[in-house]
């Protein structure tokens, strides 16, 4: 065998090994770690609301179940990579997540890793949920456990190659999964900091309002400065304190918008934001005010 072939083969093997290591899915949170935290179901409901789980995981509303929260999934999300279909996350033991430990759940939410050690697609916005406190995740799980269990098999996503390979997501996560705060705020104001947590973490506002690069990574240098909508059907507005953003909106305007959906002109929010407002309208007033305080405190872009 010629040396060239040897070097070539060695390079390929190194490449494959590196790929394998880089794309491995670890589940870093242990049962022992979460068992030390006591769950608060009532608070879990608030986490559920700011997290907007219903917007994606609720099954199609029906008249007979109008007043129950049914997380059987089925909603379809068209993207450039194919169609994602929201899975069943109701506490059903067979088809939902009823058999999951709290650590399984925390690894999914904060690290995008399944109980079978596979990577999740970032269509599930764990890139934001990664910033949630473990306590909030524990509370959230306890609340979801109180919801109706629904038996309904989750559907397969309809993706095109190579996006069908979950392993490839390992590399993507190396680049784009990060639980650090997005913005450095030099303020001790607890309301602003609470708002930062809600917006950058569970509220996942940046997932829609920030632009992405070609492979779907969030562009943090243009944080909240508007983006094309995920299904490519229009634009999500700039909500930074920029001329083309919402610099004209007062603190009260933002808090009211998140409560009733009324804009400063008393038109009402449309598009996907109506779903977000259904959720934020259920938050304590202080949390809506905190979100407003954070958006007002963002450094204006250069």
């Amino acid at each position: 065998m010629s040396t060239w072939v040897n070097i070539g083969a060695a390079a390929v093997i190194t490449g494959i090994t590196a790929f394998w290591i880089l794309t491995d899915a670890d589940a870093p949170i242990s049962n022992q770690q979460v068992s030390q935290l006591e769950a608060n179901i009532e608070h879990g409901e608030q986490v559920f609301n700011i997290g907007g789980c219903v917007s994606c995981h609720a099954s199609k509303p029906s008249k007979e179940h109008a007043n129950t929260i049914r997380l059987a999934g089925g909603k379809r999300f068209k993207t450039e990579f194919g169609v994602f279909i929201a899975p069943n996350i109701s506490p059903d033991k067979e088809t939902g997540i009823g058999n999951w430990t709290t650590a399984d759940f925390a690894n999914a939410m904060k690290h995008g890793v399944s109980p079978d050690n596979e990577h999740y697609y970032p269509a599930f916005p764990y890139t934001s949920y990664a910033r949630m406190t473990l306590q909030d995740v524990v509370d959230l799980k306890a609340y979801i456990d109180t919801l109706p269990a629904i038996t309904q098999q989750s559907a397969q996503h309809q993706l095109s190659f190579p996006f069908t390979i979950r392993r490839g997501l390992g590399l993507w996560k190396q680049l784009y999964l990060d639980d650090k705060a997005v913005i450095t705020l030099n303020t001790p104001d607890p309301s602003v900091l609470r708002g930062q947590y809600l917006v950058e973490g569970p509220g996942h506002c940046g997932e829609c309002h920030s632009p992405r690069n070609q492979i779907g990574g969030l562009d943090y240098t243009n944080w909240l400065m508007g983006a094309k909508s995920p299904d490519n059907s229009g634009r999500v507005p700039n909500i930074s304190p920029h001329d083309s953003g919402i610099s004209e909106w007062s603190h009260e305007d933002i808090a009211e918008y998140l409560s009733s959906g009324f804009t400063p002109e008393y038109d009402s929010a449309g598009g996907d934001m109506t779903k977000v407002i259904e959720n934020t309208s259920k938050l304590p007033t202080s949390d809506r005010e905190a979100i407003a305080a954070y958006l007002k405190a963002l450094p204006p872009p250069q």
Partner: protein
Amino acid sequence: MKKRFNALPVILATFTISAGSLNAADVDKSIEIRQSYMQLVAFNVGIVGSMAKGKSKYDSNIAAEAANNLALLSKMNYQAMWPEGSSQEDSDHTRAKMEIWTDAEGFAQKHTNFANSAQNLANLADKGLNNLRAGMKELGGSCGGCHQGYRTKK
């Protein structure tokens, strides 16, 4: 404050527009009218909204008046404002989606939701600021509930 009633007879008068075959001028007119109707709705929401935000002082009489206007507006027969053939596929001046006509039942349901929450607000508006705010949440949900499915994005 009295002025806001003046637009109402104008709108009511134009209800005679029939939903038969439309020429371009009829289409433009009905679009203009329903947009004015929405503006009139928004104007009244603004009166209570500015109280909810603390921009103007809460006054139970004024709040009740505005909420009653909304209840009244929400009960108007709206069909004549939405003649078939006036969607955004027919004119550049409107954001009205085709679904208003292809799913007339759904659209009617959204209107009923609006009328119910406007009446609810009218019942709550003079019962203190917190009740007013609660009523506005529901009202806002009913506006957004219709806009989401029946109006195109900006």
